[in-house]
């Protein structure tokens, strides 16, 4: 805190389009002018307009004041405009304070006289707080236009193409031998009739041919480190050779894994998985008659035993049920807990299926399965015909039963969550759905997620996610640099006890512990001789300025530059 003599404060009264004029009468203005350190007083009608603010700054620059307290509405009204002030010539935006008298006094205290009193208290407090202000600078660093996409599935491919089209160099890493992923097994989309494998092949070809995309297949993910502008992915190729891939930003699109249901009776050959069904239909239905003794007449889809809240299975089952009726005239049953129709056009497909004779059966209790003369007997209670105390149930003798695979998180999720400090949700998918990050962003700047590693969704939804993630990366990289102000946490290495509390609590992985030499100069490499001690350091480009480290530090070594402990104390005080 500076001694108050050094501070010269300008009071700026914002009448907020005349709505506050009854408060700012002459007596009030006189009161403001008489407060300690106040050297000037300006009035304006609507400071939230950037142009007015610019004019104000011009006035302030000519005047004597070195800091200003705006008396008016919520700080949120002004701060966006502050941020766009030209820092080189103007007033430093951090030399402003806002006394929010409109929301905190005028609007919430009905009695005008009392509201005026409250206004005075608020402003007086702000004036005291203003003595603590100090200017904060900004920095920027160059970002090279390259990015890494992890995962060569359809989501990764879409993200890579979107980035590459925006002139960003992409390295696409795939664990599999070839790109394409699981979705490439699909031959139909429910809402796009006809062959889609050609669409997939086209996508794969585009990715491989794109001059801005480098595809690396058969690589095992071994680690990921770095920060925005300098992410490094460690990969191992089949020969065991390790290498590093660099990129300014990363999109995680490893997809999810699936575990086929083969326990107990589900291991029987008449139980198949949805991809097997897909393959059977892909060859025009030739394999539907492989069993010579008994042609496959009845096909039953069992849904919702696993993945009850994932609608992929339901969509595929309805799609394939229609195909089985339409092209192969098989009897088809779909047994599920709920028919999931929350996809574009699916209600109509559902209706079409029923019209074609597909029988849908809904259950509350899971169906029972038994082997009867080589067929599978599916026993189920249909919810709409069950009666209280009645044991009435349906028996469906099926030649083929399609049971869903369980969708599970990719095996890389845990490792990535650990090294990136990204939270895992309960089931092991990446990143809780935190509204603050609007699905595709993560708590680590420059890392985005899309598709099945976040949550298995339908193809369309995943592709939109891929594009949104690509949009995030494009936004970051489009300017060619990342500019940020230094309103972040700062650690005094001389006070740091290297207790590792701050890197452990930092939610944005913005703190590292490294060597430092005397004179509070951090040394990042090549320093050996006078090596002394390790101290924590904040990476300002990663820091969101939340202040968790500040309040956790046991030695009070950390300061939040735009809200110091002194300022909070003054706000708390009477």
């Amino acid at each position, binding site marked *: 805190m500076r001694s108050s003599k050094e501070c010269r404060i300008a009071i700026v009264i914002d009448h907020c389009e005349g709505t506050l004029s009854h408060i700012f009468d002459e007596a009030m203005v006189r009161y403001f002018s008489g407060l300690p350190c106040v050297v000037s007083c300006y009035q304006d009608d609507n400071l939230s307009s950037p142009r007015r603010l610019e004019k104000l700054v011009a006035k302030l620059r000519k005047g004597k004041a070195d800091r200003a307290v705006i008396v008016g509405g919520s700080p949120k009204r002004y701060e966006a405009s502050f941020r766009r002030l030209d820092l080189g010539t103007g007033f430093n935006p951090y030399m402003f304070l806002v006394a929010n008298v409109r929301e905190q006094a005028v609007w919430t205290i009905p009695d005008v006289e009392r509201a005026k009193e409250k206004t005075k208290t608020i402003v007086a407090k702000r004036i005291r707080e203003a003595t603590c202000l100090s200017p904060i600078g900004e920095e920027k660093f160059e970002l090279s236009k390259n990015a890494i996409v992890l995962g060569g599935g359809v989501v990764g491919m879409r993200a890579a193409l979107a980035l590459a089209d925006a002139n960003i160099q992409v390295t696409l890493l795939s664990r599999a031998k070839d790109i394409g992923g699981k979705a490439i097994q699909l031959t139909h989309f429910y809402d796009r009739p006809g062959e889609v494998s050609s669409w997939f092949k086209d996508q794969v070809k585009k990715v491989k041919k794109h001059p801005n995309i480098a595809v690396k297949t058969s690589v095992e993910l071994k680690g990921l480190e770095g920060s925005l502008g300098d992410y490094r992915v460690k990969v191992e190729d089949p020969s065991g050779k390790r290498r590093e891939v660099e990129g300014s930003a990363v999109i995680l699109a490893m997809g999810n894994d699936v575990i086929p249901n083969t326990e107990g009776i589900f291991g029987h050959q008449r139980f198949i998985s949805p991809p097997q069904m897909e393959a059977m239909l892909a060859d025009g239905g030739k394999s539907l008659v492989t069993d010579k003794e008994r042609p496959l007449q009845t096909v039953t889809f069992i849904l919702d035993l696993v993945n009850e809240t994932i609608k992929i299975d339901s969509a595929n089952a309805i799609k394939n049920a229609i195909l089985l009726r339409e092209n192969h005239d098989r009897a088809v049953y779909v047994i599920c807990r709920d028919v999931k129709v929350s996809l574009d056009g699916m209600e109509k497909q559902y209706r079409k299926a029923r019209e074609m004779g597909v029988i849908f059966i809904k259950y509350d209790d899971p169906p029972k399965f038994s082997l009867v003369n080589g067929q599978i007997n599916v026993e189920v209670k249909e919810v709409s015909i069950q009666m209280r105390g009645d044991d009435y149930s349906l028996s469906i003798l099926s030649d083929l039963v399609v049971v869903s695979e369980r969708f599970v998180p990719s095996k890389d999720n845990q490792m990535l969550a650990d090294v990136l400090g990204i939270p895992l949700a309960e089931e092991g998918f990446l990143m809780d759905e935190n509204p603050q990050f609007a699905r595709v962003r993560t708590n680590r700047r420059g890392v985005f997620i899309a598709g099945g590693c976040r949550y298995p969704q339908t193809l369309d939804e995943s592709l939109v996610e891929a594009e949104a993630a690509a949009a995030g990366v494009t936004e970051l990289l489009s300017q060619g640099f990342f500019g940020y102000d230094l309103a972040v946490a700062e650690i005094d290495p001389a*006070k740091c*006890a290297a*207790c*590792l*509390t701050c890197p*452990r609590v930092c939610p944005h992985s913005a703190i590292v512990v490294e060597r430092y030499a005397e004179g509070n100069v951090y040394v990042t490499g090549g320093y050996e001789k006078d090596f002394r001690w390790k101290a924590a350091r904040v990476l300002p480009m990663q820091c969101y300025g939340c202040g968790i480290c500040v309040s956790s*530090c*046991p*030695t*009070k070594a950390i300061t939040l530059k735009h809200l110091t402990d002194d300022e909070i104390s003054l706000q708390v005080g009477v």
Partner: protein
Amino acid sequence: MIKAEQKPVDEILDFLKPHRKILLAGCNACVAVCHAGGEKEVGILSSALKMARKKAGQKIEILEDCSTRQCEPEFVQELKEKAEEVEAVLSIACGVGVQTVARMFSDIPVYPGLNTTFMGETDELGVWIERCQACGNCVLHVTGGVCPVARCAKQLLNGPCGGSQDGECEIGNDVPCAWQQIYDRLKTIGQLHRMEEIIPVKKWGRESRDKGPRTISREDLKL
């Protein structure tokens, strides 16, 4: 490092009763790292004490300070000016720090604000586990780097007791059996034969306290 916990505030209040002006001295070394006695805790404790005394109608003035290390006389010396102003010192360093302060400022009372608990390792932020009892006769080379003195509830030196079950100690509370850990570790490093080595009964002689406080004396450093 040394781990400690703060004493309950009411206990501290109790022994501070006769004093109206004290020095609250923290230590920025081990006890700061375990969030018990660093600069932050000095502030919190000071605030709590002041409030409690205000409430009781008996105000207390508290000077605050935090040493680099309270087990070093030179650093404690820096507190001298403030110590001369007060009636007593409340030290929230480990027991060593409290005693250093007591020795340096021999004419005023010095009180401990912490319970020094053990020497341990950080399991995760906020969780510390005991690892060493400073018994003075280390056997870690025989036990694969796992100390039976600090980790076995019975401090057994030659294998587990009958209560070890599925790798767990019979005292429950999810405490692993130290001897199971020793076995596993020796197996991993291929030194299972070490299990057969008999660790002799501990000589609670020179290492123990029957000759008074233990001291370490390094002739080469002493000059």
